[in-house]
């Protein structure tokens, strides 16, 4: 799992690559928490490099959504791959997440 981030127009774009599971999820959570702690609450997660997630990944997402929205921010996704989409559907997360076709659209959604 690789995580990068960059700031685009006041929005923090977090680029994830690899699989999200019980091993990698805590690091992602930690990474996101660090941003939230610094006040970066407008978050976009680029999931185009994420080919797989288990329920552990969903907990990361739910945690991020709750933390950011509680601070009037949000956590939005782009680039969702089919296997990840299946999991989102399965869990009903499709309903509570905001998804965008690409990073630019997601960033733009904050403005």
């Amino acid at each position, binding site marked *: *799992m*690789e*995580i*990068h*981030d960059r700031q685009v127009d006041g929005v923090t774009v977090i680029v994830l690559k690899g*699989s999200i*599971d*019980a*091993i990698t999820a805590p*690091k992602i959570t930690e990474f996101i928490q*660090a941003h939230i702690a*610094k006040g970066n609450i407008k978050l976009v997660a680029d999931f185009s490099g994420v080919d*797989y997630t*288990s*329920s*552990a990944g*969903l*907990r990361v997402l*739910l*945690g991020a*959504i*709750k933390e950011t*929205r509680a601070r009037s921010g949000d956590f939005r996704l782009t680039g969702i791959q089919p*296997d990840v989409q*299946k*999991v989102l559907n*399965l*869990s*009903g997360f499709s*309903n*509570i997440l905001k998804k965008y076709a690409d990073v630019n659209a997601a960033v733009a959604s904050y403005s």
Partner: protein
Amino acid sequence: MAYQTNPYLIWQLIPGLILFGIGLYIQSRPIKKRESNVFSLLMFGGSLWAFANAVQLITPNIGWQRFWNGVTYLGIMVVPTTWFLLSVKLTGFLHEQIKRIERWLWLPPALLYLFLLTSGLHKLFFTAFDTVMLGGYVALENNYGPLFYVHTGYSYVLVIAGIVMLAVSLITKFKQYGVQAYGLIIGVLAPLIGNAYFLFGSPPAGFPDPTPIIFTVTGVAFAWAIFGGHILEVVPLAHDTIVRKLSTGVLIVDAEKHIRDINPAALEMLGLPAQSYAGASLSELAKRNSVLAWTASEALNDAVQDDQEMQVAFPETHRTFDVHISHIGDQLGNTTGWLIQFNDVSEQKQAEEGMVAAQKTLKAILNTLPDSFFEADPDGIITYANRAFIKNLGFSAWEDVQGQNFRKFTDQKAVRDIFEKFKLLYETKQPLEPFEYNYRTKNGMVYIGETTVSPIMDGERAIGSRGLIRDVTARVNAEKEILKQKDLLDSLLQQSPIAMVINDMTKRITVVNPAFEKLFGYSHAEALGKSLNELLASASAPDEADQLSTITMSKRALREKKYKRKDGSLVDVEIFTTPFFVGGERFGYLAFYNDISERLKAEADLEKTQSTLSAVLDTLQDSYFEADRNGTITFANRPFWEETGYSSKEEVLGKSFRRFVAPDSVRSVFERFERLYQTGKLLEPFDYNYRHKDGSISTAEMVVSPILEGRQVVGARGTIHDISERIRSANALSEAKDAAEDRARDLAALTNVAATVSQSLDLKDILQSVCQELVSIFEIRNAGIGLLTPDRKGLEIVAFHAFDPNEQSVLGMVLPVEGNVSSMEVLEKKRTVFIQDAQSDPRTSSIADISKTRGTRSIMIVPLLARGEAIGTIGMPARDPEHVFTRNEIELAETIASQIAAAVDNAQLHAKTESALDVAERDLEIGRQIQSGFFPESLPQIPGWEIATHFHAARQVAGDFYDVFQFRNSTFTAFIIADVCDKGVGAALFMVLFRSLLRAFSEIKINTDNVQEQLLNIIVNTNNFIAEYHGKSNMFATLFFGVLDPATGLMHYVNGGHEPPIILDKNGSIIQRLMPTGPAVGMFPEMNFRVAQIRFTEGDFMLGFTDGTTDARNFAGKQFTEERLLKSIAAPWSSVFSMLFELNVELREHIGEQKQFDDITLISFRRKLSLNDGVHAICRTAHLAALGELRDFAESAAIHSGLRPDEAFAFKLAADEVCTNIIQYGYEGREPGLLSLTFDVADNQARLIIRDDGKYFSPDQAKRPDIEAEWHERELGGLGIFFVHELMDNVTYNRIDQNVNQFILEKNLTNPKSNKE
């Protein structure tokens, strides 16, 4: 009737009267014998003959004449038989035989007489009776019939037989008969003459039978002979049969004291020569110097008529004689002679004297007896008591007990008892059985006496009692004591763990204890009465058991033997035997058997080890020796004596080490040895000159260490390395070897890094040290370690060290990642970047200025990777700007970087957990981290093969490791399992070193042709490196290294002293063990290793393990054991995963909560039955790290089984969720076990079975999430299990074994046909 006269009448009447008179005289004799009766009968017969004939003659009537003729014949018939009988009795001829048929002799004459009387009827005896007139008288003339002649013949036979007997007797014994013999001769001859005259002469007509007349002559002659010579009183027969044989001397003298008879006994006693003394006078005998004869002669001087008795003693010869003289007189009182008897009474006399002496002695003896002796009368009054009796009862003199009643000396309680005893004695008159009895002494003390009482008999009457009393007080007390001791012995025997046996003197077993029964398998009853030989003799000790007992009947002995058990098995025993006493008497012997099988085995092992060591030492290139504290050589290996020019070890042993030291080195060597002895510490290697046998000198390097016994230095051992030899061989080393050494040196440095890392937890310190090490390892100008900042935007230089101390440090500087292309590449790609020219390369443009300032061109940037994440970089610019970092350098740097990363990771972990962990636990944790970082992250996937491993960490850091990797550009796969000796951080570091060396030396090209050679090189190089560079640490590893060619199934392997891996076939039978092909690796340089081969056919397994497996202990300290291991795996397995899973479950059941002191490492692989073996299975240690492998397995197994991608994804996700749950909750707070996954498709249904041996938890406990809820209502947990249920058609979860849980995930395949597409 008128009687007629006959002229011959007078010749009949006179003999008749004479004969009748003789007969009467005989009968009137005072001493009558049978002979007398026969003689009388003969005389009466003759007399009847004569008288009846006379009456016949005077009877005129013919009838009466015939009657008297018959009577006459009665006399005639009696005479021959009686004559014959008398002859027999007088001569003794045929005496015994005749006596038996005597009455039958009378039968012929009786029958003949019957015929005579009845002659008128048959005329067989007399045919007719003629009457003859002779001178006026009538005489009867008999006409004889045949029976008459029979009678006559018979009569003559008897008469002549009698005459012959008498004649022979007379001729042979003439002298004995004396003058009487003449009478006998006349008596004998008379009938012969008379009869001859009657028969052959011419008697006048009518002359009667003259026989009676002649017979009268015989009778008179006999009577004279017999009575004149007293023949009938002193019968020759008696003389012969009795007198001559008498032991009593018999001497008969007549009235004139002339010797009549003397027997040989008398001659001997009189001391006279054996000759005839008939007629000699007694006084003549006396003159012949015979005291006895003289005594007898004197006794008869007065011609006494009384019997006399006297005794004559001859003191010189100790002989005594009784002389008894009997007077022989006739009825008128006239003396006819004396019978003198001599009896030798010497012995009787001596016996009498002896008796007197014996009685005196007896009393004396009785008085010296320690036992009491008494005699008492029937009333119990003491009539005799010996000194002991008096003394034992506390009295001082005989008078004190004399006349006292026995009961006075009896304990009150025993009075009745003793009364009964004596009663019994007098009733039975038999000695009593010995009985114990309490006696009372004068002062009232009681002592116990064993008493024997017997009656004193007088004929049939018991007139008293005598008894012997033995004081057995001491014995009885001793017996009590013995009983006590016996109890002690019994309890000893019963409770002793040592087998014991007691044999009696005949070597029969009398007692065996339970330990004996247990050791040899014989019960007490079975062993009883047998000899040890029968029970225990074995082929190697055929009759030892009894021989041993013979040896030890008298003394103690200790032996070691091999004996046989009841079941035939042999057991080594140590035997200690000792004579065994009961009540002070030797009873037999006691043998102890100690089972020393274990000890012998240990000793044998030790010996084997020692001989192996000795052999190993001989194969060394260097000289090795051991010496005692005096410097005397006690051991030397082959190189030692060969090097010094000797021809055998024996030549060197016992010599002083000084002899092998050159004079100029003696002092320094001596001082060093002294230091060694005083400090007991290993000496630094030092050079010295040594001396050959021929006096030449060489230079060598010596390493000496002390030989310790406890803390005492008892000697020294050392190795001597010929330096010149080393220089020569060093020169001969090839370039390849140089390269290897370089790499080895690098790895040595690596060890230092590892040591540094492990020694400190301060991250800054660690990294600073590492930088220093890096600068010394590589030809670099400096080393800088940069860690990503938390926002991952910068690299903070946390450690820096420069080769040139004047170089400016960049410590603390934060380099931005953005724009730093080289660093980004390193971090993102997680790989090393090497830049040849940092000043011009676009990737380093952001630091081009700094590079120019510093003159940096060639630079290597290595990523720091921890748990799969890049956390920083190490930058290393080369000292030589043109330097090209080699592949080796890069790999080494990467290896170091991985350790640094682990250390950083640890330090960060440590920072988090510092407060919770104590220092010791931290150290262990670090060690484990180091260790676990060196296990392969994933196992190679090889088509047609299954591989599974498991590692169970010990509480302490240990030195186990395993490795599975494929050689570069090859499918050849290495399987390594090893155990570094010892435990602790040191062992862990060596494990790292071993592992690194093996990996480094495995960087080679391998193919079918060189695999054997290359494998050997890997092992030999590793061995030599460790032994040469780390020999002082004495670390080594048991190591199995196999190189498998998956295409052919052929594996080459070296087993360096490791537990032999097990090979199973597809049926689960153990078909082979891969035994060691060389020693443990790293002990000594240049050891011999051999490469062996094994070919795996389809379905074959290999299982390698470390001793932590078999030594795993349960709560009771009991080991798992190799037997159990073999038993657990010997079964047909569908996959290597199920085997490893089940084995691990069993192991963990055994271990329970027990913390292990040694790592447990298992490595196994299996050749599948076919490339697409029906079973899809995997087994991995329950770490999150394995999660990716596990879910990928589920997916690929599903795809391979023809499932659609979405179905395969369902299994992948479900497997992930279940495994995550198990790993996170099932093994929470416990050592991770194994997770086993199997996948199969049957009846249009796909099934994934997941097993674990963790805690049981119910997946249904999780609350079902509400997936319809709004975001703020959603909860974090519960989704995983929810997914599983959603994705699968059927989910079951249960506990199938005490410790094994099982998830079964099933999914119905909806469109089977499309699956194929």
